[in-house]
């Protein structure tokens, strides 16, 4: 029993990691007033690029770097479309998502002449954290994990610090709430939004890599399977804060882990579909104010037009 509890928590952390990373990206872009539903597509492209990078160089960390670079590049497309060209942000995001599905399926065929799945590549392995690993129970959960788990947890702290303790964070939030006010005190609204969207690309890039060469060691067609959207749900449920997004992602990861555990030991008193539904149900409840109130940044989704 204790063992399956530990396994459950261990899996929760692993499954939550891509969500945490992508949700952090979501927090940055939405706080600046740009909706980025392209997180899903960016993650998918980055998952592919991480695999490809590792495959071509044999070094998984170069794979991670490739993923981040592509994450930033694709988010740059979203930034140009939605900030400079003032395209509808949902449309731009949707276009990128569709593009990502097609592009990765196409590249998979070109590179490996196989549909569906890449050969397996070197993954990033796991890290063992010395002292923590020796603590009973906690050590079993946290002591040895894929590197992305630790990276994600550290990035939550850094993101909190940036957003709520630094001038840059205050400016991002101001630009997302009242861009004209930010402009009137000399803040460059366009530049601030670009940086925020590129940061979200960085996070989505890491999130993508954490799936293909962290959780697994292959790229599978469409392997993000909606995680980008669940991450957005975690961001909303976490009220647009890094720490809230972390907790929400852990909760969603827990639902995922529970579902996997129930399946592996043949428990079926809760249909797994219900567990899979949990993130969405909770998010809807959060949005409708049943669980506390959550209000998005006031200028979210509105392009800024200087008169």
């Amino acid at each position: 029993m204790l063992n399956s509890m530990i396994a459950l928590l261990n899996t929760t952390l692993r499954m939550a990691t891509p969500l945490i990373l992508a949700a952090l990206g979501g927090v940055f872009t939405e706080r600046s007033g740009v909706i980025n539903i392209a997180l899903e597509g960016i993650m998918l492209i980055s998952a592919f690029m991480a695999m490809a990078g590792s495959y071509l160089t044999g070094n998984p960390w170069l794979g991670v770097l490739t993923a981040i670079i592509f994450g930033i590049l694709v988010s740059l497309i979203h930034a140009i479309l939605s900030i400079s060209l003032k395209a509808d942000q949902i449309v731009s995001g949707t276009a990128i998502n569709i593009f990502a599905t097609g592009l990765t399926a196409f590249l998979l065929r070109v590179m490996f002449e196989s549909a569906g799945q890449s050969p397996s590549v070197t993954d990033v392995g796991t890290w063992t954290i010395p002292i923590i690993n020796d603590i009973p129970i906690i050590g079993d959960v946290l002591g040895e994990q894929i590197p992305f788990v630790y990276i994600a947890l550290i990035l939550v702290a850094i993101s909190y610090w940036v957003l709520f303790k630094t001038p840059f964070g205050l400016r991002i939030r101001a630009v997302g709430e009242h861009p004209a006010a930010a402009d009137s005190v000399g803040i460059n609204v366009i530049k601030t939004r670009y940086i925020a969207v590129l940061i979200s690309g960085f996070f989505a890039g890491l999130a993508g890599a954490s799936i293909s060469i962290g959780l697994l060691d292959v790229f599978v067609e469409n392997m993000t399977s909606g995680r980008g959207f669940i991450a957005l749900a975690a961001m909303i449920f976490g009220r647009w804060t890094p720490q809230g997004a972390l907790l929400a992602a852990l909760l969603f990861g827990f639902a995922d882990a529970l579902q996997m555990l129930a399946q592996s030991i043949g428990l079926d008193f809760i249909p797994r579909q219900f567990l899979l539904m949990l993130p969405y149900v909770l998010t809807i409840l959060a949005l409708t104010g049943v669980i506390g109130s959550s209000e998005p940044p006031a200028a979210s989704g509105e392009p800024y037009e200087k008169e």
Partner: protein
Amino acid sequence: MSNQNSLAVDMQGITKRFPGVLANDNVDFQLKRGEIHALLGENGAGKSTLMKCLYGLYQADEGDIFIYGDKVKINTPNVAINKGIGMVHQHFMLVQPFTVAENIVLGSEPTKNNMIDMKKAIQDVEKLSEQYGLNVDPRAKIHEISVGMQQRVEILKTLYRGADILILDEPTAVLTPQEVHELIEIMESLTNEGKSIIFITHKLKEVKSIADRVTVIRRGKSIDVVDTADATTNELANMMVGREVILEVEKSAAEPGEVILEVENVHADNDRNLPALNGTSFQVKRGEIFGIAGVDGNGQSELAEVMTGLRKLKSGKIMINGKNITNYSTRDIIESGVSHIPEDRQKRGLVLDFSLFENMILGSHYKPPYASGVNMNYSSIKKESKRLIKEFDIRTPNEEVLAKSLSGGNQQKVILAREFNRNPELLIAAQPTRGVDVGAIEFIHKRLVEQRDAGKAVLLISLELDEILSLSDRIAVIYEGKIVDILDIKDATEEKLGLMMAGAESETVVEGGE
């Protein structure tokens, strides 16, 4: 301040065009060091535009700007801020969920180890606030403080950045008389410190009481610069509008008819779920203008909202023409013959991103001639809009522009045009002349009186005691959500109303006076 030039600001030949509008046409403007200089002009004359050019929010198409004698190209607010210019905007520029201190330091944050030094920010704000007697709480969130306080935050924003040239764009339009009084004291203490102030207002009394000089702008051109002492308010009004303006309302005695509106023991909460109306009762008759006087925040806003279906009653009854309309939907209330000029034009009055012609018919958009069946009839909508633009003298290139591109006062006129055009049995007018120029005030007051003389009823809610006294036939004083007393105009004086607005019963007022 190395240069000892006596002019703080010298704008020469400023021209600024918008599509279809020449907003500033070769305007000259000079601000002397240490003076309070009023900028006067009709709605849409180009005052805000000229100031936005000075602050770097707009770029003038032609003309030069000199600050303390140095020619400067001000293409962003940053340049203006560095030159010591600060601006308090007509529509506030505050981030609602932020604290006062965060708003003030935004963009120029004090830091320690790469972090915002919030402690220092709060101390700095407290120090400045004390120095100028502003009394703001740096830790409060913007949405928790009153409009008057928000304005002080705007002023602090400029002072924090070290501004010594301040632009105040209609700072008094949204303030209560008491707050105006306090603002004037603040402005005086600022000029005593050697700061120079540009002050935009439509209230000639304020100009007379505080400004050293006045520049008058009409239709984008600077018309004249005078010493305030040398001009009467009437002369100023005439300069602005270019014709004789009658500042006093001319009206005959009212001939009230039967009761049209009955408000009975109404209770309602405000947005923070605290009681705002505590048993409000009164009646309004046909053929009268019924004024509601009171200090801001005593339930006036909520009263207008419950009568127009925008807020739920907890208990009580509202009848129009003998029909019980309590908690009716807004559309049903409009159908019962009620029009409403809301107090906040941008929040309740207009869809800023809609064109003028769309805004002109909101609320009647589903009825002929504006709609036939499910189709909108745009040709008749536009025709009607054109007519209203002319009738209400709305300064706009055409009826197609977005409402947000109009000047503040012209936005107000769009709402007036729409609401009068419904030809209502009862017109609820909340702050109907907020931010409009003297010429427009004259026109609006005339229309309100005409409405009354046509046997319709007008319920006037205003924070301006002058307006209440000059228009109303009967005056109700509201205090803490209750009507303290209702006076006939012939019994009402400013002093009496003032005391009652502070909560005194009329009998005690009379006794006190004896």
